[in-house]
């Protein structure tokens, strides 16, 4: 009983943490989306190459900025994680699928920056970090439940 109770508590905390992380990703993606539409250069203070990445042909899919798609994905992830934090198991399962897909897309985007474009964008890397954090939180929750 105690183990079960502990398991429930940690799983509830992980979705809450995932919601916070998704919110951070959402803010980052929204920032890039607005910058895309205002056509302003994005400041690149930590590393070089933001402009190369954000003005590349990979920055849009069918005319829709990748950042906007990311913002939509993070908002969905946030909503699912929050529902899960309040006890909705199905939402957490959906979150798991989504976070895995997001991590795969993120891996592809990092590959594009490293191997094709040859430059990195710090805001894209922040998004990558949040995306990987989401899938890690989900996997940890699965591991905890198995115990």
């Amino acid at each position, binding site marked *: 009983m105690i183990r079960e109770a502990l398991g*429930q508590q940690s*799983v*509830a905390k992980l979705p809450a943490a995932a919601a916070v992380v998704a*919110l951070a990703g*959402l*803010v980052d993606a*929204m*920032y890039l*989306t*607005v*910058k895309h*539409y*205002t*056509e*302003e*250069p*994005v*400041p*690149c203070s930590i590393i*070089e*190459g*933001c*402009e*190369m990445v954000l*003005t*590349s*042909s*990979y920055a849009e899919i069918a005319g829709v900025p990748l950042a906007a798609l990311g*913002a939509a994905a993070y*908002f969905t992830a*946030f*909503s699912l994680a*929050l*529902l*899960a*934090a*309040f*006890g*909705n*198991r199905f939402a*957490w399962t959906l979150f798991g699928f989504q976070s895995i897909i997001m991590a795969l897309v993120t891996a592809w985007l990092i590959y594009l920056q490293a191997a*094709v*474009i*040859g*430059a990195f964008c710090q805001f894209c890397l922040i998004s990558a970090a949040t995306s990987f954090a989401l899938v890690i939180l989900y996997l940890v929750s699965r591991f905890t439940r198995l115990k």
Partner: protein
Amino acid sequence: MKNEPKSSSIPLAIIVTVLIVVIGGAYWFYNSSKPASRNSNRAANASNTAKTPQPVTSAPLGAQPPNMLGSANAAVTVEEFADFQCAACAAIHQTMKEIQSTYGPRIRFIFRNYPLSIPAHNKAYEAAVAVEAAGLQDRNKFWAMQDQLFTNQKLWTENPNYRQLWNEYAQKIGLDIDRFQSDMGAAAAKDRVDRDLQRGRGLNVDSTPTIFINGRPVQFQDVNTASIRRIIDAEIQSTAGRNQPQAAAGNSGNAPAAGNATEGSK
């Protein structure tokens, strides 16, 4: 993870609140970022004119003579490094035209080719050569071709027969097509692009568009009409202040013969 019907409205309320805050925040950020026209007065009040960036002390001269508009004797030099496949450069193109027409001979505007060496910009170098080839026929044709390539950027960038489109643009602006094509293959136009590239590298240009005003790089957030105008106005004022006593002493000011006041001198 127990189902608690009573609390189901709480997450929904949070989700809706976050959605409203995010959309509202994005709208506010968009309005406050979309610079120029709306906040020009507020921006003009800011007195931090290009304070932080320091002028670069030495760099190759770039193509000579440079692609220049305005007056060679102007006290303020605006130098833009751009790539013809860069969307932000196409976006800022209208701003730079506006700046040129606003200040006319009060500034010296120099355009530098800076095609980025990235796969996504695989036609950028060739585009820069095409524009320089146009300029070899007539300096005014350089600007006409530059305008064509920026204005129609999406069109030719996505077209596998982009060279055909360039020929059409060349025809439209009245170039001799045979000469245009032979100049594109010749060394002179490429040499000008390479020299601009060397200058850009010397000035540590790492992205496009990069704009220098009297040798000082304009910060990213200031690449908009209002901020550029504010910086130029401040430069004109400070130069006028400096020149008054110098003029009395018979000093003729900057020597623009090399065609570029910012080259290594600021």
